[in-house]
């Protein structure tokens, strides 16, 4: 399903789904998300009333788990698919609104640290993924797609790069599947590692934003650790997303020079086309809040709206992950992706630990 959604996303750029087609899936996202939120509240209240010692499991995890059960145990009817695919749209709405929870000075400080680490992370990840791709005899374009996906921004970066370097659809399907499968693993492994290392919220959020590829999974991984870590994860991931245009442009020029992709005409136009516009929305809201354009209650309301948008995203992360479909995509790209991800996770953890010593995150 993950693959079919990813492919349908490419198709949807040509033929956008009619608004009414989206309603069932959006209602399912809302239902699953709300069920997760209610379950957290119910279990906490029940445990308290019966004097049980029960670990607080965040609504994020419940929403993802309910979604995973529905998509892997039951079959999600086709009527829900277009609406489920909107989870990335709600993610972007949530990120823009999350700008209300950052004063611009914090954005500049944390964003600056994130950007510095992102540049190092992207450079090392690209080198690493190309070395692994060569070692495992993957096709050069599949290697390029895996490198773009694991260094920047997961699925969206792969889709953007696929068009720019004229890669096969099958290669992009492999790369997307590897990134999605590894993102699902990161969701559960990162918080466990973070707790065992007693990472602060700031350090963990930065690590999740740098180390987890897909924006939805990075946001969910941060939020699974804590609310504060979720905020930092989104900021770090947004800084990483902002680099997408530069990396895809570099690949487009590289493949064009080899005569295996169309030439890039207007480079500034190319960069603007690939630049994630929600980054600008995030900065705009943060600027407005910093200028005291909203009252305290209104800022709280904007923060809550952002949480509701993320709730739909977390439900979508579970609902679009189908392990059977992912396992059909072949082992080699997955092994290359997995090896790369483990090394990148270790590398970014080292970077974050170093940064937290210097800047005290």
């Amino acid at each position, binding site marked *: 399903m993950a693959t079919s959604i990813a492919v349908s996303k490419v198709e949807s750029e040509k033929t956008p789904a009619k608004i009414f087609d989206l309603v069932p899936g959006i209602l399912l996202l809302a239902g699953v998300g709300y069920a997760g939120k209610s379950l957290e509240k119910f279990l906490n209240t029940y445990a308290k009333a019966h004097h049980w010692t029960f670990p607080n499991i965040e609504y994020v995890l419940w929403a993802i788990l309910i979604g995973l059960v529905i998509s892997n145990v039951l079959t999600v009817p086709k009527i829900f698919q277009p609406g489920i695919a909107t989870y*990335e749209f709600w993610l972007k709405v949530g990120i823009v609104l999350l700008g209300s929870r950052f004063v611009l000075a914090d954005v500049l400080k944390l964003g600056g640290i994130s950007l510095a680490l992102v540049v190092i992370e992207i450079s090392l990840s690209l080198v690493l993924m190309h070395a692994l791709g060569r070692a495992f005899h993957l096709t050069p374009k599949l290697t390029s797609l895996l490198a773009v996906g694991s260094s920047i921004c997961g699925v969206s*970066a792969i889709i953007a790069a696929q068009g720019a370097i004229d890669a096969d659809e099958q290669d992009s399907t492999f790369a997307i599947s590897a990134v999605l499968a590894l993102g699902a693993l990161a969701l559960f492994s990162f918080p466990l590692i973070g707790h065992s290392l007693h990472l602060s919220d700031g350090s963990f959020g930065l690590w999740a934003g740098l180390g987890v590829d897909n924006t939805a999974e990075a946001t969910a991984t941060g939020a699974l650790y804590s609310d504060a870590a979720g905020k930092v994860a989104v900021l770090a991931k947004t800084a990483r997303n902002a680099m997408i245009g530069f990396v895809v442009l570099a690949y487009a020029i590289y493949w064009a020079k080899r005569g295996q992709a169309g030439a890039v005409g207007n480079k500034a136009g190319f960069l603007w*086309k690939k630049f994630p516009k929600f980054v600008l929305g995030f900065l705009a809201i943060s600027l407005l809040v910093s200028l005291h354009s909203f009252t305290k*209650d209104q800022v709280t309301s904007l923060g809550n709206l952002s949480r509701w948008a993320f709730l739909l995203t977390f439900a979508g992360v579970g609902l679009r992950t189908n392990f059977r479909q992912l396992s059909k995509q072949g082992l080699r790209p997955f092994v290359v992706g997995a090896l790369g991800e483990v090394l990148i996770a270790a590398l970014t953890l080292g970077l974050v630990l170093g940064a937290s010593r210097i800047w005290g995150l």
Partner: protein
Amino acid sequence: MSGEVSSGRKGWKPSLDTWAVILALALALLVRADVFKKIPW
């Protein structure tokens, strides 16, 4: 993440990214105008 969907001769067509920004800013405007007084969580 993904960029603009299309532009060119047929005129500007907002991408999903742009629509997300438009919706978020519209919601912020409605909160600012007190149309939504309090959004609970």
